[in-house]
């Protein structure tokens, strides 16, 4: 396996961010940047991983890219590491611009940083960490796929992912409040309510494309009688593509704004919407880059929140969702947080027929959108869906046992699964857990009837 993986693939995909970014790179600059990153930003962890790996290849079968490409060793986790960071280390940074372009494409578009392989490595080597170092080097060299680079620039300029302007954000909250108040009179989205128990945070795509999720969250919060708020300032978005391009400094800025907002609002905890990577950023990477071991204000994911509301009787089941459902376990909140049983508890409470996909829970296959891969945009879409054929097979198997609906409590998973369902003609619909709860819960006008 390892030998054939050493030869790098030649990509036919043209990405402006990669091509123009690498156009003026000198070998001297590349060597200096690599040296700076390795010397100043890595240490025992990298050394341990590099010296511990025995090239056994047990990680290979964990990777959806490898499985989806007929076990081509170049797509195995060790193969991708061998083509990138190992080569960099072996060459002591003396690599050329063509190498950087290829390493960039591998690191950004052939690994979702999903950490499934880490579970199958006998030593627990976290390949996502190794690939993240490659991304960091690429970022420092200015070689980043265009679309995800643009998203990072949006983060830097607006502190949100989607170039949402300050007034557009607030106006969206009022719009959703007004819409939802048609359904539940006097429903409120409390903006800037200091001392509320909960700060409900979402990601950029919600005000931009999926504002119905804010509506639904408002209905759930109002029904459950939660003392909550949403900020009128930047700091409302917990998403973070800067984390995924290796722009650590901006990741830190985003998380400072985020937690400063929570502290300013004097909330006791943060509930975040159904997003996976944002959880990774605020619970693991962004907070720690700033110096917090854990989030300074406790953060829980929507799944934990729904579970809590249901257990405490604050939301109740009015009817069961009729179609057969299966549950897609997002990497960052299942392998990263262990929410799979809570998710099943809530899902089963609101649905008539639950069909497990296999493998599931922490062994589930990635949607192939996470890790910033979907954010690399249209140039890599075909490659992305073809890189997750195994997911299509997994979904099809669930469908053949009656699953018509996929519940995926993560935005990136939604995007990735939609593309897979469409590309492979699976004919399944995808929903957030909040969609199901909103549809099937008791709402104020029906409560007490």
């Amino acid at each position, binding site marked *: 396996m390892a030998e054939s993986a050493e030869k790098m693939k030649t990509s036919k995909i043209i990405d402006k961010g990669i091509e123009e970014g690498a156009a003026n790179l000198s070998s001297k600059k590349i060597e200096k940047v690599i040296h700076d990153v390795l010397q100043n930003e890595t240490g025992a962890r990298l050394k341990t991983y590099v010296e511990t790996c025995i090239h056994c290849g047990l990680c290979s079968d964990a990777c959806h890219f490898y499985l989806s490409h007929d076990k081509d060793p170049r797509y195995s986790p060790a193969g991708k590491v061998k083509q990138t960071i190992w080569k960099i280390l072996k060459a002591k940074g003396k690599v050329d611009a063509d190498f950087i372009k290829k390493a960039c494409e591998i690191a950004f578009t052939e690994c979702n940083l999903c950490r499934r392989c880490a579970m199958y490595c006998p030593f627990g080597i976290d390949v996502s960490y190794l690939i993240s170092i490659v991304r960091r080097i690429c970022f420092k060299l200015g070689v980043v796929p265009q679309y995800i680079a643009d998203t990072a620039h949006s983060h830097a300029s607006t*502190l949100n992912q989607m170039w949402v302007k300050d007034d557009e954000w607030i106006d969206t909250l009022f719009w959703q409040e007004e819409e939802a108040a048609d359904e539940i009179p006097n429903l409120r989205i409390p903006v800037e*309510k200091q001392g509320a128990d909960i700060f409900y945070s979402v990601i950029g795509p919600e005000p931009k494309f999926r504002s119905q999720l804010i509506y639904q969250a408002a209905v759930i919060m109002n029904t459950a009688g939660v003392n909550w708020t949403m900020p009128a300032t930047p700091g409302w978005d917990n998403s973070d593509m800067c984390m995924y391009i290796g722009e650590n400094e901006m990741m830190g800025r985003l998380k400072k704004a985020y937690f400063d907002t929570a502290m300013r609002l004097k909330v006791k905890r943060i509930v975040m919407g159904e997003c996976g990577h944002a959880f990774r950023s605020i619970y693991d990477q962004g907070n720690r880059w700033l110096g917090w071991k854990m989030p300074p204000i406790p953060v829980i994911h929507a799944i934990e929140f729904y579970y809590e509301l249901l257990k405490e009787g604050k939301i109740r089941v009015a009817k069961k969702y009729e179609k057969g459902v299966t549950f897609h376990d997002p990497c960052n909140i299942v392998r990263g947080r262990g929410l799979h049983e809570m998710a099943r508890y809530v899902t089963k409470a609101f649905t008539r027929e639950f069909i497990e996909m296999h493998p599931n829970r922490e062994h589930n296959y990635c949607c192939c959108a996470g890790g910033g891969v979907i954010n690399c945009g249209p140039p890599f879409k075909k490659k992305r869906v073809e890189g997750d054929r195994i997911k299509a097979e997994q979904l099809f198997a669930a469908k053949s046992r009656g699953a018509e609906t996929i519940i995926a409590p993560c935005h990136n998973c939604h995007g990735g699964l939609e593309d897979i369902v469409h590309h492979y003609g699976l004919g399944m619909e995808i929903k957030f857990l909040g969609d199901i709860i909103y549809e099937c819960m008791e709402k104020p006008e029906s409560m007490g009837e």
Partner: protein
Amino acid sequence: MDTTELKLNTEEKTGMNDSGSWDWKVDKRLVANISHWKEQFGYMEELYVSPNGERIAAVVKSDDMKFSVCENGKVWDKTFDKVWYLQFGPDNRLTCLVSDMGAWTIAIDGEPWEKRFDFIWNTQFSENGKDIAVSAQTEMEYFAVLNGIEWEKKYSVMTNMVMSQDGAHTAAVVQTIPVGAADIFKFREGCFSVAVDGNPWDINFVNVWEINFSKDGAHAVAEVRTTIYDYTVAVDGRLWNQTFPAVWKPRFSPVNNSVTAPVRKGDSWMLFKDGRQFWDQHFSQLWDHLYSNDGNHIAAIVAPKFGRWTIAVDGRPWSLTFGDLVTDMVISPDGKKVACVGKEKDFWSVVVDGRAWSEAYDMVWKPVFSPDSQHIAVKVEKRGYFYLLVDGKTMEGEFKVLFNPVFSPDSQKILVKGITGNPDEENYYRQVIRLSDIPG
């Protein structure tokens, strides 16, 4: 956006108010029966109280589903499609942002500005409350409005609007050069700047974030990046002569207009002044620094090592550290004391000069110093009720709602503003207490 400062509860902006003219007679006075309000309105939002405690207000909805404001039990004559961001200014005027038929403006004591906008937000007050500014958008052009007067120059993007303490100036981050969708290379040429009173600096940056005015309002400083890797500080558009991998919000000294900013060097943070290292110490993190009024001392929130947080005064960290966070730092008026809020394992504490008060709480608000710096009052929350601590002692009485306290100008009394009672009889009282009467 300066999320820690721009949106300070206006109750905290009372440093330059005319509190000497307030009623400081030792007394407990019923201002409003809140239970009556709740009976009267099917919809009522949270309550806000003026700095002097004389006025209490909430956004309410009428039967025809129009929004208005109830103040001391009386509803404004005017109603609106939407009312939000109720704020009392330091001079006790009541402001809120209102809309009718999709047109927005600000209402001050119930009277809307004549001028209407497609959207406004981010109400700002001068230190004495006489001047009011908002961020505004009309026909997708962005600008600040100060006392009803718009910037002449408008921008396609504007963020982080701030006002000088004296209320004479406004500044914001503006986009000066258009950037096409996903044009990452154009973006990196630098398309943002700082506009002061609407006029942009003659230099562009890749990004600009926090802006601060000097005390006299004559100068502005901003944290900027000149490439996607190089961060630095710009004073009136002139850059420090070195760059850093990251910087945090810069500040002017209140006495000589020198500028300090936390900067990252290697994997640690330090405080720089006018482009040169100022504090000798390095920290795992350093941010949110403040000057004493006399400019002789600087305090900052720091992490001496990963995962432990405290305050450093003039570069020297306290020995007491917290694992969760440190926030709400405040320096006494005489510059000799520093107080903050610390959190460890979900319990919040008041800390003064490196020593934590004895009890921990579910939440602690920003400490308030008396004008003579001899007393500290803090609002805290425990098991759903609010309490007032003065100099470490819990004052008698629990509150359902409590607003930040204010000391009298002579530092002998404290104004307590809170709601007590049972659900059938919730009352808002304004009470002035002599500090010497608080049981020791």
